[in-house]
């Protein structure tokens, strides 16, 4: 579904030029849960921007669902993002002073989905992301960090995208809440067959995925199956002082 061949990305020109990606090639099939890992500055976000069609590579080709997106214009890329990709960012995922429902419906607004259908789909996505109904009409600034990330996951889901891209989605969360968010992603992958690319610099977060791609200095240094992915739901249960309400929502 995703085919990257010899992707490079160079920022700046001449003396100032900095090559953040130095020839990246790999393939991700539908239904995979892949983690892209690497230390800070290794080019993870740069790669994610290219996979997410937020940016185009300096050279190389990127084929997403049989379409070459590496040479598309801004507006063509916007169309691809709208239809194919759902994003979960580390921070600033939601519009401030806007309700949870409205936030989740936003991609549908840009996709010209009829108004009657938007709310139904947004509610369904929020349920899949494990947010309880009481929070649907809360304003985004009334939510906790974990809830915000789950709303963001719901928004990433609502358009029924081919791919969910999460860039350090647990970067701002404590470890217990991180597990809840990881559990949500795992459930979406296992139970609903969603293709998920998780970007992180933390090995214990990355180990929840079925496949690990390691980056260093803009190159892939390892690409291997994870024979024993960690199970976030189990870990949450084992967590000291288990929060019943959290586990209930996940099961």
């Amino acid at each position, binding site marked *: 579904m995703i085919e990257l061949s010899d992707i490079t990305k160079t920022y700046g020109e001449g003396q100032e030029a900095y090559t953040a990606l130095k020839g990246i090639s790999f393939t991700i099939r539908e239904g995979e849960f892949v983690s892209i890992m690497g230390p800070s500055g290794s080019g993870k976000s740069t790669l994610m*921007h290219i996979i*997410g069609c*937020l*940016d185009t590579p300096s050279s190389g080709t990127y084929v997403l669902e049989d379409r070459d997106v590496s040479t598309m214009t*801004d*507006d063509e890329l*916007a*169309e691809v*993002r*709208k*239809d194919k990709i*759902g*994003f979960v*960012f580390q921070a*600033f*995922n939601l*519009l*401030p*002073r*806007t309700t949870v429902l409205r936030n989740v419906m*936003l*991609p549908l*607004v*840009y*996709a*010209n989905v009829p*108004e009657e259908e938007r709310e139904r789909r947004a509610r369904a996505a929020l349920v899949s992301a494990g947010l309880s109904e009481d929070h649907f009409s809360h304003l985004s600034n009334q939510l906790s960090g974990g809830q915000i990330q789950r709303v963001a996951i719901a*928004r990433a889901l609502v*358009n029924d995208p081919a791919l969910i891209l999460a860039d350090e989605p647990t970067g701002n969360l404590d470890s217990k809440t991180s597990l809840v968010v990881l559990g949500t992603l795992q459930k979406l992958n296992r139970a609903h067959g969603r293709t998920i690319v998780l970007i992180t610099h933390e090995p214990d977060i990355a180990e929840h995925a079925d496949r690990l791609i390691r980056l260093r200095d803009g190159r892939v240094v390892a690409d291997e199956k994870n024979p024993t992915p960690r199970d976030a739901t189990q870990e949450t249960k084992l967590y000291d002082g288990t929060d019943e309400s959290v586990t209930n929502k996940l099961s």
Partner: protein
Amino acid sequence: MTTNDLVDETYAALSANKVRSGLTILGIVIGIASVIALTAIGQGAQNTISNSINSLGSNLLEVMPGAARTFGFGASGGRGSAKSLTPSDEIAIAGVSNVSLVSGEYAARYQIAVAGANTNTTVDGVNGSYATIRNITMAQGSFLNDVESQSLQKVAVIGSTVATDLWGPNATSTNLVGDKIRINNLLFTVIGLMSTKGGSGFGSQDNEVFIPLGTALQYFAGEGNQYLSTIDIQAASQQSMTQVQNDVTALLLSRHGISDPTKADFSILNQQDLVSAASSVTSTFTTLLAAVAGISLIVGGIGIMNMMLTNVTERMREIGLRKAIGATRADINTQFLAEAVALTFIGGTIGVALGWGASYLVTATGVVTAQVTSQSVLLAFGVSAAIGIVFGWYPARRAAALNPIDALRYE
């Protein structure tokens, strides 16, 4: 994105920072309100002036003795000071084609007295046709007629100011017909009181006394001094005024034996010229007012631009997020443009209401009857929407052109 979504988004964005939106709107309100109020005042002044010129009479030409004078400027010999127009000139003018009415005037200031009061004012000897030529209407009694003039009767028609000067403030509500007044010590009988015309400008007749022209020439002008101070002519139609003016000029030149028109011993004032001169002055005045108001509107527009640019910077991450989840350039552009247009449209609506109110206040002071025209309201709306588009265009374009990655990264 439907129109409904756009309205929702715009409302949410503008209400997020109410004080800032309010102040920005205020700039437009002031601009639009001043455009409406000042053009209303200009339009009102224009109407007042042209009404007062029209109240002089219709299709009016005035022949005056003395050399031609420039309208509004130049030295003037004063009405009636030169002696060149005679009663026989008046009779000759009546024969010119398209002249419907003619009245000579002999005017001078005299002391008017009744028992216990007196006043000094213009006494004007005229023919019966003068009432029609100069649009005079009567509050009491009737105007003069030509029989009274021929038989040199000592009768008088008075203006309302004269009446109140002589008999006190409530005089016009009592019957004055038949009362006696002394003009320069001669006893006259009041046969009519004219309706108040109001205004103080162009030839108000409220402070005048009219007597028969024959009587005036007989008793006041004196032997060997039978000259007129003005001849009023009513042309048959507005189209014939120029022809009448030319024919009367030619007639009088030949009657006075003058071959060089620049040496004419009389001048003709054409009401039409007066109207167009006055309206060109007032429309310049209106344009000037509108220009001043327009400047404040531009300042308001700059306020919009300033706010929108601040908005784009502040909402950089929001723009990045919207782009990441599928907003196109056009979506972002439309959204920011809609915000700017909404600001100016709200400002325009309040401004029109405020300008309207201000016009009412000005009218209430009585200085001028301000007139809000539907064109100026439509124009104000059009201009405010245009300002929204013009001043919102650049910030909206900046927002739309943002790279989603840079926008998301922005701290």
